[in-house]
């Protein structure tokens, strides 16, 4: 055993460059995989932290049915399911600075109760004492923005009146101060807030923390069973499944990176091992001739690959941890909310990354090693080994069939099988292309032989001819194809995720919106602003209307469904629904439901639904269902019937288009004056969202560089292998009169052609891969991916550049070549 290990180590030492390339490729794969897994977990954790916001460790919230109703903490009975509870009083006001109004949500609670669920963290680390009267605690993000210091006085507009507060403490932007929307949250003494808003009868909300080991569902069931019907609304604070699903959607590019990096690694290790075993044939022959069994030879060679796998895998994890910390540190800094993203390293990510690195090293070496150890001893010893290969038509036929199946499978399977089909399709497309590449190379070389013959005569023609039936060339093209298509697919999917998440108004016509109470006169004034094209005012019912017992979190009413459709980019479930809904809205009590809401109610299009606000009720016919990223509305009804049935007079939301949306927005803000509102142009909204989401997706761009690095390592590895295998051929050419200059020209033409073909194949296959990815993701998204030709062409050009620059080493090495040494043996 010692001799075998010594033999393996000597091999490693003797082939330093090759060993380094193999180790590096495994290390990078392991690092990438580890970072992808951990980023997804860390991102999930950050999402959860943001989603929990002020709820802290509470998982269930209890509201009174009406906005003005209050809850008392004593209303909630003592249950073994409950660990702690806190009553929260919440109101809103404005902070006015330099003509800009910022919404400040005021909250108050019994501090001893609050501490048990979500204790505020003061910046100076002290405990909160003597917190009473006109005092306020603000988060550092707000105080830093406006240059406010502890002890300063600030004035807030409460109900149109200025109220002065002393800044008692500055808190860290977390716990109760963390929020998902713009604006700030401030903590006031409970007596002060209740006095200011005359809410001495109780709280708006009670937050419940479950006892240890109690699930959210059990807690909700337990509370619902003891609380009287109708007086309390018990709900889950965060939907953990939804958060996980959202996080998974955003971490999709990271997994794609892992997938491609693994594919590249497999190819690098496989091709390296093919050469290694070829190099070692004399040694294998010697081993076999002195009595080593097939198994023993396989074991010796595989032990070497295991060594590479273990070392690469082990070192990949600490490197991954460093990369992860670096990335998350950068992310936390660039998030506008200033949220620190926790570094979540799970045993799963460590074990999975190491095992995968280990496994790919072993499996990639398996085929060439087993094949070599099975060779007849006599042939190996005499050096007369002829590698049997399956018939060409069989390979190409299988490749073509697999390619077609891979394209069509995701289109044909049912929705619940899409992920599986997508995985098969992506792997299938890559595998099929690898099988077809030799045929394509041969066909293209025939064409190029003619073209180069015209352009650079015999040297060009020979370079093109040399590509035909040349395993080194097809290997180069294959690696290039895997790398470039990986970069293209990751870039396109990454950019799409970025756009999809940050640009929710993509495809929507509106250019600005106002969210606040607006009278019809207010809307008329907006319509009369110069340059305004369309104004779409909406009645908004938030948690006010029930439909067959299901509470709608947001229901809107419009008097122009056509504009509503275009302004908010509604995607109807069926194409004909839009037209039917528009005509139905004009004539009848009709209602549109979002697809998720339709699913929740268990109703179907055509059913009748009874809308009720507790005091009035009316029947509406469901005329359609839709998806929209621009609005979180659950139901839409006609304005005229809303006004009759539920007595709404003022509008709650307004969307507009205009020649100068920014100018119109300034005037809308003026119209609101001191009235609470949230008004933004789409551009402003997108900039905010983009800076948040863009920060999350920054790591993906960093990881794309890793893929490029891995691809570059692969190409260099391949060029080294290529040169090693080609040395003899180059020497043969030299022996019959090929000059160094001619060799240089031939190598450059060959490299350029390889790069060009690799790039062309990558562009086509990555387009198919992207289609597969979006077919799989299709049911969950409402937007078509925009494919930029620039991304494809840039990736292709960089592939050509890599191959061309990679040809420098063979050119230099062949200048120093000793012809006799290469051809004699």
């Amino acid at each position: 055993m010692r001799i075998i290990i010594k033999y393996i180590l000597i091999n490693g030492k003797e082939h330093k460059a090759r060993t380094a390339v193999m180790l590096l490729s495994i290390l990078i794969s392991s690092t990438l995989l580890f970072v992808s897994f951990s980023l997804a977990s860390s991102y999930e954790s950050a999402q959860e932290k943001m989603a929990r916001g002020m709820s802290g460790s509470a998982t269930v919230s209890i509201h009174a049915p009406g906005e003005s109703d209050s809850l008392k903490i004593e209303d909630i009975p003592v249950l073994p399911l409950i660990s702690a509870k806190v009553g929260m009083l919440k109101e809103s006001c404005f902070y006015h600075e330099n003509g800009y109004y910022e919404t400040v949500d005021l909250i108050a609670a019994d501090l001893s109760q609050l501490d048990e669920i979500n204790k505020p963290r003061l910046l100076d680390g002290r405990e909160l004492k003597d917190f009473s009267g006109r005092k306020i605690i603000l988060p550092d993000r707000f105080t830093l923005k406006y240059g406010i210091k502890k002890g300063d006085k600030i004035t807030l507009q409460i109900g149109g009146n200025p109220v002065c507060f002393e800044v008692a403490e500055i808190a860290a932007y977390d716990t109760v101060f963390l929020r998902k929307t713009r604006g700030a949250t401030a903590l006031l003494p409970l007596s002060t807030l209740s006095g200011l808003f005359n809410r001495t009868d109780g709280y708006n909300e009670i937050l419940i923390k479950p006892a240890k080991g109690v699930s959210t569902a059990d807690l909700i069931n337990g509370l619902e069973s003891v609380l009287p019907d109708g007086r309390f609304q018990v709900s889950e604070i965060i939907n953990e499944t939804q958060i996980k699903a959202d996080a998974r959607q955003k971490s999709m590019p990271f997994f794609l990176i892992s997938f491609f990096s693994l594919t590249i690694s497999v190819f690098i290790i496989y091709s390296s091992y093919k050469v290694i075993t070829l190099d070692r044939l004399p040694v294998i022959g010697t081993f076999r001739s002195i009595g080593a069994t097939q198994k023993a030879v396989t074991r010796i060679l595989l032990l070497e690959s295991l060594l590479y796998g273990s070392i690469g895998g082990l070192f990949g994890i600490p490197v991954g941890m460093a990369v992860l910390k670096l990335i998350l540190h950068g992310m936390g800094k660039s998030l506008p909310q200033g949220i620190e993203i926790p570094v979540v390293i799970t045993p799963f990510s460590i074990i999975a990354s190491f095992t995968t690195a280990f496994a790919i090293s072993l499996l990639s070496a398996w085929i060439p090693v087993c094949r070599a150890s099975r060779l007849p001893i006599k042939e190996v010893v005499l050096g007369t080994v002829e590698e049997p290969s399956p018939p060409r038509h069989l390979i190409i036929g299988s490749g073509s069939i697999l390619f077609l199946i891979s394209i069509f499978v995701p289109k044909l399977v049912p929705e619940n099988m899409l992920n599986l089909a997508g995985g098969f399709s992506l792997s299938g497309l890559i595998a099929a292309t690898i099988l077809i590449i030799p045929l394509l190379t041969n066909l293209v070389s025939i064409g190029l032989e003619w073209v180069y013959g015209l352009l650079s005569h015999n040297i060009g023609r020979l370079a093109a001819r040399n590509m035909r039936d040349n395993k080194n060339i097809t290997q180069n093209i294959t690696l290039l194809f895997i790398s470039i298509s990986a970069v293209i697919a990751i870039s396109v999917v990454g950019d799409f995720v970025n756009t999809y998440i940050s640009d929710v108004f993509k495809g929507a016509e509106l250019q600005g919106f106002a969210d606040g109470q607006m009278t019809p006169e207010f809307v008329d004034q907006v319509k009369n602003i110069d340059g305004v094209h369309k104004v779409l005012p909406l009645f908004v019912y938030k948690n006010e209307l029930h439909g067959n017992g299901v509470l709608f979190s947001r229901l809107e009413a419009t008097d122009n469904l056509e504009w509503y459709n275009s302004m908010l980019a509604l995607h109807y479930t069926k194409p004909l629904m839009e037209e039917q809904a528009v005509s139905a809205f004009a004539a009848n009590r009709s209602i549109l439901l979002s697809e998720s809401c339709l699913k929740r109610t268990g109703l179907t299009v055509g059913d009748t639904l009874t809308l009720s606000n507790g005091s009035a009720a009316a029947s509406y016919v469901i005329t359609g269902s839709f998806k929209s990223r621009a609005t979180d509305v659950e139901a839409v009804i006609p304005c005229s019937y809303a006004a009759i049935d539920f007595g709404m007079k003022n509008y709650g939301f307004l969307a507009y288009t205009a020649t100068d949306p920014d100018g119109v927005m300034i005037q809308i803000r003026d119209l609101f004056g001191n009235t609470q509102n949230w008004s933004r142009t789409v551009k402003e909204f997108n900039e905010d969202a983009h800076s948040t989401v863009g920060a999350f997706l920054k790591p993906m761009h960093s990881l794309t560089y890793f893929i490029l690095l891995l691809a570059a390592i692969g190409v260099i590895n391949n060029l080294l292998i290529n040169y090693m295998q080609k040395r003899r051929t180059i020497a043969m050419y030299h022996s019959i009169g090929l000059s160094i200059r001619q060799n240089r020209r031939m190598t450059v033409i060959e490299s350029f052609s390889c790069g060009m073909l690799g790039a062309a194949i990558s562009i086509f296959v990555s387009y198919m891969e992207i289609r597969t990815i979006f077919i799989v993701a299709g049911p969950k998204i409402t937007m078509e991916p925009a494919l930029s030709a620039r991304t494809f062409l840039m990736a292709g050009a960089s592939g050509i550049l890599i191959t061309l620059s990679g040809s420098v080493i063979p050119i230099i090495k062949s200048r120093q070549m000793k012809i006799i040494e290469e051809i004699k043996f």
Partner: protein
Amino acid sequence: MKPLTSTIAVEGRHIVKDFRLGETITNVLKDVSLEVMQGEFVSIMGPSGSGKSTLLYILGGLDSPTSGTIRLNGTDISHLKDEQMSRLRRQKIGFVFQFYNLIPNLNVEENIMLPLLLDGRKWKDYKKKLSYILELTGLSDRQKHTPRELSGGQQQRVAIARALIGSPEILFADEPTGNLDSKTGAEIMHLLHQINEESKQTIIMVTHSAEAAKSSSRIITVRDGMVE
């Protein structure tokens, strides 16, 4: 014995070749001088490690001497630059190796035409010549085959055809039968002899085989780096 012309085809003067292996310097060729006349078929013989192949490669311009001069038809090749040396190899020299050294992914006729193509000549201008060479080497029915589809003897015939296609002034052969069985070896020697006889082709061949050397007009024996 065929009549020889009086022109010198290859002339080597005071050829010395040293190899350095770590600290040790090995004198492979020690002041070798020789002449080969045009149309001559010379065999270089000698025991393993005597320096015969090194001498052949130096004479053929594939290796350079540590000192000394080599003239091919009067041209001193000792100080030629790569471009000039490559042109010389394409136009004036033909080489046949023990292990054939054919380009595996090119077919027979492409392998044969390579020196001409590298020299920038047009395929169509040499169609007749190619047919003649294929006929001469008995490969007419194998022109579209790749080397891996040929036997050892056939591959060596392709190598000879490739060496002859450019009508070289001198044909160098390094143990052309060394990798072949005796029957095939004899056929290859017969072919070389025929070429020398019919077209007065100068041939310098390294061989271990006394049988093969019988086809030549003169034998030069190299022992311990010196011509005996």
